[in-house]
């Protein structure tokens, strides 16, 4: 190459080397940190991927200082840009717990404070955020419901699970398993069954997994119900297998799990034959693998895996990745302060941490739910503390946790 050719080559490289909109890699196309909100304080509690590749984020909003909370629903496109944001106010303190994607829209579940007591409130929303159906579940004997989870079966029916305090054996008190099984909201059909007897052991149900996705009402439909019980100052993880009628309580925990002093079941995830329980003790979080034994009568628990022990930690959600590792979102309580950080991490099959991302080193952040997307990437929501207000955040990252 002579000097003239070299000169022209350098000129060509200069122009070809120009970064422009067509050749720049859009960082936000796949990975982003987004904030959403309006006047007042908002929190993010759950997120799901929508059929159009976007996201539906469920949360709560308090728009005026000292006011009550409303359901908050945010729809975004695949890049996290907000398409619409709606609040749903039922007059009292409304708290959304879960959001699900269903055909033609979204199903959201939570509670609403109505007439002096807290009811279970379920909404069906269309894809534009319009309320299609509004269902309140109440019982005359119940003072307060807590809605912790909603699950859809393969037939399209869904179950709501939670706890209630009410009149048990003629007196107010006692928390029990509460499950409502709907065939159709408009028909209002449901089943309600309780566990626990209002005695000294209080049972707080956090959620359930459908073990066998048979049709609702089928003879073999089973649930794995998880939660925790309190006996005096001791809190223990509780796990039950139940059939549809909840009349047959399966079993509690085998002895080995009781080695933990204090345990709260935060979330559970079922795979083909195992269940991964995200469990929180006072200053530690654990993953406990639950394995169904061949005779389908008892469950075996593998030794708990510690996922983080530096500070107080509370698990929020657990989802399984396509490669069968687990994505855990949790809240870390910073020592000697009221500040919290939000953490999302991946664990291996036995709980070893592969990577973690933390939000909130400078501000107080809390975690909501996480979701593994169709392409294997991960998104999760939560609440960002921004000085005098809180907002919903949504973070998306590669399946290996990288955000670049």
């Amino acid at each position, binding site marked *: 190459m*002579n*000097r*003239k050719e070299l*000169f022209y080559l*350098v000129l060509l490289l*200069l122009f070809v*080397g*120009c*970064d*422009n*909109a067509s050749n*720049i*890699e*859009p*960082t*936000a196309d796949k*990975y*982003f*940190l*987004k*904030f*959403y*909100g*309006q*006047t*007042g304080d908002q929190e993010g509690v759950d997120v799901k991927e929508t059929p159009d590749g976007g996201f539906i984020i469920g949360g709560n909003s308090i728009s005026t*200082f000292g006011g009550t909370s409303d359901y908050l629903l945010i729809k975004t*496109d695949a*890049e996290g*840009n*907000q398409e619409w*944001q709606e609040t749903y106010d039922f007059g009292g303190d409304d708290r959304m717990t879960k959001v699900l994607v269903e055909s033609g829209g979204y199903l959201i579940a939570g509670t609403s404070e109505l007439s002096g007591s807290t009811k279970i409130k379920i909404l069906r929303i269309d894809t534009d955020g319009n309320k299609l159906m509004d269902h309140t579940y109440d019982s005359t004997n119940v003072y307060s419901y807590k809605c912790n989870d909603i699950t859809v079966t393969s037939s399209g029916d869904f179950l709501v699970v939670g706890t209630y305090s009410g009149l048990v054996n003629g007196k107010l008190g006692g928390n029990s398993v509460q499950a409502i099984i709907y065939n159709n909201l408009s028909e209002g059909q449901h089943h309600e069954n309780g566990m626990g007897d209002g005695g000294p052991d209080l049972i707080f149900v956090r959620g359930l997994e459908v073990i066998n996705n048979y049709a609702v009402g089928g003879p073999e439909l089973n649930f794995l119900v998880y939660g925790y019980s309190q006996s005096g100052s001791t809190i223990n993880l509780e796990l039950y297998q139940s059939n549809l009628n909840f009349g047959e309580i399966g079993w509690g925990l085998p002895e080995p799990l009781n080695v933990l002093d204090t345990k709260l079941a935060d979330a559970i995830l079922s795979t083909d034959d195992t269940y991964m329980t995200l469990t929180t003790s006072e200053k530690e979080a654990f993953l406990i693998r639950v394995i169904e034994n061949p005779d389908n009568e008892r469950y075996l628990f593998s030794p708990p895996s510690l996922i983080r022990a530096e500070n107080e930690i509370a698990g929020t959600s657990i989802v399984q990745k396509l490669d069968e590792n687990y994505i855990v979102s949790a809240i870390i309580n910073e020592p000697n302060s009221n500040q919290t950080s939000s953490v999302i991490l991946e664990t291996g099959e036995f709980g070893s941490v592969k*990577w*973690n*991302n*933390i*939000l*909130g*080193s*400078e*501000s107080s*952040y809390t975690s909501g739910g996480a979701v593994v997307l169709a392409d294997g990437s991960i998104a999760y929501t939560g609440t*960002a503390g*921004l*000085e*005098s*207000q809180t*907002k919903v955040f949504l*973070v998306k*990252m590669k399946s290996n*946790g*990288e*955000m*670049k």
Partner: protein
Amino acid sequence: MNKIGLFFVLFFLLIGYRQGVSQCAQNWDEAQSEFKEGHLYSIPSLLGDCIDNGFTKPEKIEAYRMLTVTYLYIDDPYGAQNSFLGLLKLDPEYRIKPSDPIELEQLSKEFITTPILSWRVRGGINYSLISSLYKNGVGNTNLDTDRYKGLIGANIIGSLDIHFNKVVSLGIDADVGINKYSYTNKLFDDSNGNQNSKDPQTFSEWGYNVGLPIYLKFTYPGVKYYPYVYGGYSPNYNVYTSSIASYSIVQGENINPIGPKSLDISSIRNRFSNSIILGGGLMRRFGYKYVFIDVRYKLGLSNLLNKETQYAFLSEPDKYPEIVEYSSLYQKIDDSFRESDLSLTLGFVWPQYKPRKKKTVTMGSMFNGIFKKKGKDE
């Protein structure tokens, strides 16, 4: 040596000098007289010694001129060339006067009187121009509500011009600059449900950078004024970038400000970038020095956002504490962007001359000269 001895030494030196000066003044008068009378052959001997020692610089210039014309008239071209070269060494940009004979004018065209090198120093202001290549952000980036605004920065530039001829030169700069711009946006929905409309955020960013522009310059060889244009390429190194972040939370009538706070964001800026430069200016001659005014457009070619570290604060928050604050508290996720600037500088030129006999130079021959292989040169 005592004081009296020193006095006498200085006294005799002064006397000798005055006598020499006086002799050269006589020689000069005699040479002028001889020139007018056409007695040319005696002139070189009259002026020769005084040119070496005795004449002042203006007198030397006049003496070389007279010698050159003399040699031209007595048909001694080598003597004329040497004398004219002597003149040019004293007055590199000697310009033919109307009173000069045509032979001198012809001879002058055979010499290069432009400097071989020029040193320049200049300083001034710049105005940054930001081009967003891909919008990132914590808000809805589909809505065009954010704004970049250039701010006034500063440049100090040292330069070397290598002159190929009176018109064409190659410039190499060492450019130290501070570029500034501001970014404003609003976040969250207002009470009417309008997106990106509630809380204002402002970021004033300044970057300290060094560039090494290299460019080809074309100068119109005027008499007193020398306009020029140039174009070239500049590699740049981003030394340090800081952003003064501020954010306000609006709750009805109440506004809660956060910041302003200066944050080091160098880690999310690419260190190396490329630019194309285009510019022009005007030089004004004062004696053998110049002052000039220069306008330059520096077109940024490179994305300045470091995509490798933009989100690394999430996985390594302890390593990027100020980026955590920048992105989480002040809620700034940067666009991919290029930065250009328009600068206005004033400066001085110190040319270094080397008068020499000219080869025949055309545009074509000049470029061939540039690209000529070394072996051929030799």
